[in-house]
């Protein structure tokens, strides 16, 4: 070394500072976050304009999810392979104008539940009497989710039951019961699916059904012929279940057309969502895959081509577990939120907020991930998420469920998980090579996130402050105005845990407007219809969806927060049929029922 001691001392100080400063900054940030604790309801209302209360018990909902138990060959890693199945979907099955709640259970012999809204803040499970409770029978697999769509346009939403097992389609008999029409529909005998959605991909006015396989459809998890059932890679796996697109033939039958229309994938699908992202009037299909990249199938007049890499969303492989669309900047464009895994010191995938890049549209559409800049990157082992304006301030907020497996708080499976997950396909792909769980947790006891959008490009997590304090293993999240009072409530299905109903209390000074759409030329549920609301010089687009999030479905009614003293200019509805309808003279704090012009 040629320089003298002073230069060396300066270098040493710089070296120490380079190491110390990020550590100090991150510790301070962590302390601040820890200090931002729970608030009482009055303080939360004053600071954030809303708060949640878990009213599930008062509402008469005592549902506890039970996980499946598979072939004893998987006993060592049963907590991992049986880590999904808790789901929630919102449906007004009896068309009484009040949202009801359907939840799935996953132990053989366990019952699903349909909680009818009694209009007084209580709910009653009517699934047994309507014939959609006892659906997890031996030999038929178990429920993983449910999506509702009026496939025969009779005005009543029908039920597709997502299963690891025999898929089931139930026709809604005008709210008085359900008929199993699976055989007539022509569905396959067995699919190990974790996601499905209703959408009218060819705009023929009839709802079609997408189903995304997770495990290979030849695997019966209760009767394994081999233990080589696991993903052949943690991030490049392509040995999962196939994808299905069931084209609605209009007579109660469906034709599987995925290959014909260009959907071919054996990635491990966990979540899906459909929206017209390119603006050509046809719904595009976004699939979040576990153990790999996301896929974005752009819809060109009923034919799809996979454009994940082209659009930027399908390059870095992660563990996709959610798809939610939201116009977070009030620009009339959908961003896409995909949840992944983040565990300090081991795996920092970060969740993705795919935001359309300025100047890109149509088939040249390109996304950039702004999750970190916006502050919605790190949740934990994240699952379901939904956008919704929880404080009615006019900006879409974000609710995220986290937590994978909560067993022994003091012992973690992460070391063993990382050890095998990084190995060769012949090792990771065989369940017998995986170390035993032995009662350990894996990213367990994690907080949910309630990120409120300040409208200026930042989201702040206020979950604990606004009353979302549970640490159950969150899976599926759905939002709906359950009390018909202009506040978006949140329902969370937890794996091996209770169904939680978070009732929302919002500052009444913050206004809102809701739309309930009914298609005529379009499918009757108006799934795929887009409403763009213009008020106070800004616009926000929302879409009626036939399934999204993680194994979830929101209320088909669309809810817009408006903030204080809103001046609404108009609402423009793009119906799936192509009809464009403009609504004027709208006033806040009202639910509008809109029928598609004939």
């Amino acid at each position: 070394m040629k320089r003298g001691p002073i230069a060396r001392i300066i270098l040493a100080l710089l070296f120490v500072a380079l190491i110390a400063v990020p550590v100090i900054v991150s510790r301070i940030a962590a302390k601040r976050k820890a200090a931002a604790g729970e608030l009482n309801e009055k303080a939360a209302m004053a600071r954030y304009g809303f708060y949640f209360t878990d009213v599930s018990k008062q509402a008469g909902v005592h549902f506890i999810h039970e996980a499946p138990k598979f072939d004893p060959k998987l006993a060592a890693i049963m907590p991992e392979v049986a880590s999904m199945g808790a789901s929630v979907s919102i449906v007004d099955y009896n068309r009484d104008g009040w949202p009801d709640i359907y939840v799935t259970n996953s132990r053989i012999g366990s019952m699903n539940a349909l909680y009818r809204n009694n209009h007084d803040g209580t709910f009653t499970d009517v699934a047994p009497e309507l014939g959609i409770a006892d659906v997890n029978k031996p030999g038929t697999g178990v429920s993983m989710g449910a999506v509702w769509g009026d496939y025969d346009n009779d005005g009543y939403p029908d039920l597709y039951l997502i299963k690891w097992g025999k898929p089931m389609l139930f026709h809604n008999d005008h709210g008085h019961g359900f008929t199993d029409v699976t055989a007539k529909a022509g569905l396959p005998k067995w699919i190990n699916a974790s996601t499905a959605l209703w959408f009218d991909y060819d705009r023929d006015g009839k709802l079609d059904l997408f189903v995304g396989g997770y495990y290979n459809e030849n695997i019966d998890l209760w009767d394994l012929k081999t233990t080589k059932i696991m993903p052949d890679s943690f991030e490049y796996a392509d040995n999962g279940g196939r994808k299905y697109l069931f084209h609605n033939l209009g007579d109660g039958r469906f034709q599987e057309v995925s290959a014909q229309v260009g959907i071919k994938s054996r990635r491990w699908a966990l979540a899906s969502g459909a929206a017209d992202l390119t603006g050509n009037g046809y719904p595009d299909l976004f699939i979040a895959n576990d153990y790999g990249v996301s896929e974005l199938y752009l819809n060109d007049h009923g034919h799809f081509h996979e454009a994940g890499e082209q659009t930027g969303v399908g390059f870095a492989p992660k563990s996709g577990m959610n798809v939610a669309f939201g116009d977070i900047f009030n620009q009339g464009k959908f961003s896409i939120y995909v949840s992944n895994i983040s565990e300090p010191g081991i795996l920092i995938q970060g969740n993705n907020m795919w935001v359309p890049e300025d100047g890109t549209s149509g088939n040249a559409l390109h996304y950039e991930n702004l999750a970190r800049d916006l502050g919605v990157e790190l949740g934990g082992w994240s699952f379901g998420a939904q956008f919704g304006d929880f404080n009615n301030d006019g900006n879409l907020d974000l609710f995220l469920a986290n937590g994978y497996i909560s067993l022994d708080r003091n012992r973690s499976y992460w070391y063993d998980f990382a050890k095998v997950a990084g190995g060769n396909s012949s090792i990771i792909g065989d369940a017998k090579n995986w170390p035993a769980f032995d009662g350990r947790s894996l990213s367990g006891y994690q907080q949910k996130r309630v990120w409120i959008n300040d409208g200026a490009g930042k989201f702040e997590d206020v979950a604990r402050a606004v009353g979302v304090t549970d640490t159950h293993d969150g899976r599926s999240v759905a939002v709906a105005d359950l009390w018909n009072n202009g506040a978006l409530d949140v329902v969370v299905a937890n794996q091996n845990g209770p169904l939680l109903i978070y009732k929302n209390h919002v500052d009444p000074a913050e206004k809102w407007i809701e739309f309930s759409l009914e298609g005529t030329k379009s499918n009757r549920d108006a799934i795929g219809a887009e409403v763009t609301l213009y008020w106070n010089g800004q616009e926000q687009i929302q879409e009626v969806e036939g399934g999204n999030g993680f194994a979830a479905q929101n209320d088909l009614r669309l809810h817009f927060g408006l903030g204080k003293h809103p001046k609404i200019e108009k609402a423009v509805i793009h119906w799936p049929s192509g009809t464009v309808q403009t609504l004027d003279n709208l006033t806040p704090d009202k639910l509008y029922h809109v029928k598609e012009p004939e």
Partner: protein
Amino acid sequence: MSNPAVAIPAQQRVKPPSLKSWLTLNNRYVPPVFITLILLAGQLSYGILESYERTLLAIGTAIVIELVLGRIFLGKWLNVASAYITGISVGILLRSPAFWPYAACAAIAIMSKYVLRFRGRHLFNPSNFGISVVLFLLPATVAMLSIQWGNNMWSLITIWILGAIIIWRVNRFNITLTYVVSFLVLAVIRAHIIHEPVLSEISPLTGPEYQLFIFFMITDPKTTVRSKKGQCLVAFLVALLEMFFRLDQSVYAELYALFWIGPIALLIEMWLDARRAKLAGTPTSAIATSPGIAQPS
């Protein structure tokens, strides 16, 4: 990781590089080319990187800091092959959605060569030091590549064969071989101790970070001892300490093992050198500053 092929004799250093030296494997640019090929193959086939920008940031930071510190403290513009390997290693191995950890880790790695020195010799493998420090101190921000690379047997075999040939040509294969054999034997012992499948204990060795570890990090001539026997002993001790870290469920056991064993081995070698020099009446500085090992590279 520093350049494993840079133990170039003094007389060779003064000669201008001939065409032959560029075409043969025995020059300092082979490992950078090899690791670049690994990166490109991995990225183009599997998209292994967090992003090109982050990797380029790490490489750029490492090179700039190397040049600046070399100019300030050594009075010359250093060859950047070693800094390039350090940067590219950080860019491949580190996983963070943020950009700054890539620059910070590369900077810490290069600066460690100039700060953490003893008798004119840097003690830590630069990238091992940088990555170990940020992993240990910033767990909420960074993680290490442990799951990427396709998990494909053919890509694994290709990298192993190419890596083995190169490491053999630069006379470091004994280190890699000793470590791998030690790891395998100790993996069987670990599996027996904790009653887990043997393949689950062997599994890490088939992952991508181990390929970088055994070919580029543990073989770094600047931070390994000189004698063949000593190198084998150190490689075994790294595997042995790693076993204890693994029994304690440390995810980055191999990094931390090298972090401790590497400098201790060097200090012992320096102490032995000094003792021998004293007995022979040779000044200690004559050994410590001999070309090829005394200067940061």
